[in-house]
């Protein structure tokens, strides 16, 4: 009987889960909200690119080369007469997929190595930590250029290179968090209950360290987009005819274009800026929302 009464009372109080609290904190963060809206818009743009783009992004029309903005081509056309707006829309696909997949690769590597090092400690930790130090002490831009040069520049290779060079920082964060969470009493009580170490790592530790991982991954996406743009600008990234914001900027290496044909380089430059700053704002909001110390 007492139990029944208990339930009726409980139904009236909305559940204050961590998620609902974090969500509300996130919504209060205006910049983060604005950033998220823009990021969602860019994602939609990338997904629906074939329907949104007014022209085929790779269609070359020499007659149109270097034309300024017009009603048929709102952002004008590039050196070989491809529609800039269409290339801009399709370029979002490259930037986002490089950002997300490269970060996806290094989050997985970082989580596994960091967790294993932090939880098991001892010589495993020694090896992982030294590996982290070693990879972090490579001059990364040079390494990226060399590897891309050897493997040949392509979207897949850039993703792989960024993924395999980005994990040490993530592994370090995960290791530190794991060391802290490992000392929690609920881990000890799981051990005392005879839970296998796999369960302890995946159920007790991983979910409790995800907040900083998510935040760091968000910033990582922005950084990967920037690096891709930089590589493509240098001609070591995504190769034409595939459009990417970075290789559209490549055209701007010539001074005459820089001075007289701003429609070719201002839009991709702006897109890179807007995308990275929006993602960074989103990351800031996530960091504030997910920080348990702000509860």
């Amino acid at each position, binding site marked *: 009987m*007492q*139990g*029944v009464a*208990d*339930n009726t009372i*409980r139904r009236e109080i909305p*559940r204050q*889960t*961590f998620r609902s609290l974090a969500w509300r904190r996130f919504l209060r963060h205006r910049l983060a909200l604005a950033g998220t809206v823009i990021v969602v818009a860019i994602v939609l743009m990338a997904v629906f690119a074939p329907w949104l783009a007014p022209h085929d992004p790779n269609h070359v029309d020499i007659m149109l080369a270097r034309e300024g903005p017009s009603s048929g081509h709102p952002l004008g056309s590039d050196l070989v007469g491809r529609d800039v707006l269409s290339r801009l829309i399709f370029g979002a696909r490259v930037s986002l997929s490089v950002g997300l997949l490269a970060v996806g690769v290094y989050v997985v590597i970082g989580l596994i190595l960091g967790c294993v090092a932090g939880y098991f400690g001892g010589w495993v930790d020694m090896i992982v930590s030294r590996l982290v130090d070693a990879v972090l002490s490579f001059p990364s831009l040079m390494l990226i250029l060399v590897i891309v040069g050897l493997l040949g520049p392509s979207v897949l290779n850039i993703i792989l290179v960024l993924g395999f060079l980005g994990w040490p920082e993530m592994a370090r964060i995960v290791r530190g968090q794991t060391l802290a969470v490992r000392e*929690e*009493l*609920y881990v*000890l*009580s*799981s*051990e*005392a*209950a*005879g*839970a*296998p170490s796999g*369960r302890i790592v995946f*159920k*007790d530790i991983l*979910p*409790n360290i995800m907040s900083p991982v998510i935040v760091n991954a968000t910033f990582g996406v922005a950084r990967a987009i920037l690096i891709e743009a930089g590589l493509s600008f240098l001609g070591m990234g995504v190769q034409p005819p595939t459009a990417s914001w970075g290789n559209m900027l490549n055209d701007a290496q010539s001074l005459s274009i820089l001075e007289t044909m701003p429609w070719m380089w201002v839009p991709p430059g702006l897109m890179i800026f807007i995308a990275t700053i929006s993602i960074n704002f989103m990351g800031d909001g996530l960091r504030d929302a997910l920080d348990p110390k702000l509860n």
Partner: protein
Amino acid sequence: MSDFVEAKSPVLSLRGLTTVFKTDLGVVKAVDGLDLDLPAGATLGIVGESGCGKSTVGLSIMRLIPEPPGRIACGEMLFEGEDLTKLSNREMRFVRGNKISMIFQEPMTSLNPVLRIGEILSGVIRAHQKVPRKMAWEKSIEALDKVRIPSPHIRINDYPHEMSGGMRQRVMIALAICCDPGLIIADEPTTALDVTIQAQILSLLGRIKKALGTSIILITHDLGVIAENTEKVAVMYAGRLMECAETEALFDSPLHPYTQGLVLTVPRLGSRKEKQSRLNVIPGLVPNLLSLGPGCHFADRCNQVMEVCWRQKPEICMQDEKHLVRCWRYA
């Protein structure tokens, strides 16, 4: 009661258990040559001041001493005829939670905040028994029912933060009994709870012991808890066993000066009439385990200290069949 204790062979025997911790300043013997028997189906209380090694005994039995810096240096721990110190880590994992389980002091932080109660419970059940998910869930509800959580089929979906401290400690007990262990180690299970909840939790443990025939080791610094809930008591001081007897005998005639002091420190109602307006204390502090003398560790606080106490370590001596004491006065 004495027949009850006598009749069965011990479920757990510690022989010379020594657990050490390596610190920057030297090696500390947190538990020093402990001999202890736990009769089957009984509750053994381990009592002592903070830092006397009570909790280390519990963690040693579970083989959960953080290693390094800790280590079980020597000794035997015979549980149901098997020496726990000789088990592999894998074998030990099947003992933990299945044959021996442990309840901790802090119910507020002992449950993973991101898992529902049911996920925690059924996870433990599935770690030890090959049962389908659904059956583990049913068993979890049963376990919650056993610890008298109202409407367990609804509470099983709660997150830990949706429960009070007393409720969480009940969940911890459910966790401890869900695989029918032979021994439950309760390390200060009620210290973090208020007094009424404390009484409920202790009587729950008592009922579970009777219903399931489980033996219990109750680690506490509260002599009142010991007096009401145990059949046998071990008094520890600075890592050593000082006195061990059946509960009644220990409270009726404490032999060791330390035990006598402890019993006297319990405030009694009406003591003002005896013109005693201040509480009794044992003067001094627990000694630093790094700088122990060659003699009895209690010597500097003892009111009956003799010259030999400073020079030589007293051995355990049998005062009568069930009353052991480590003191030169009885040697």
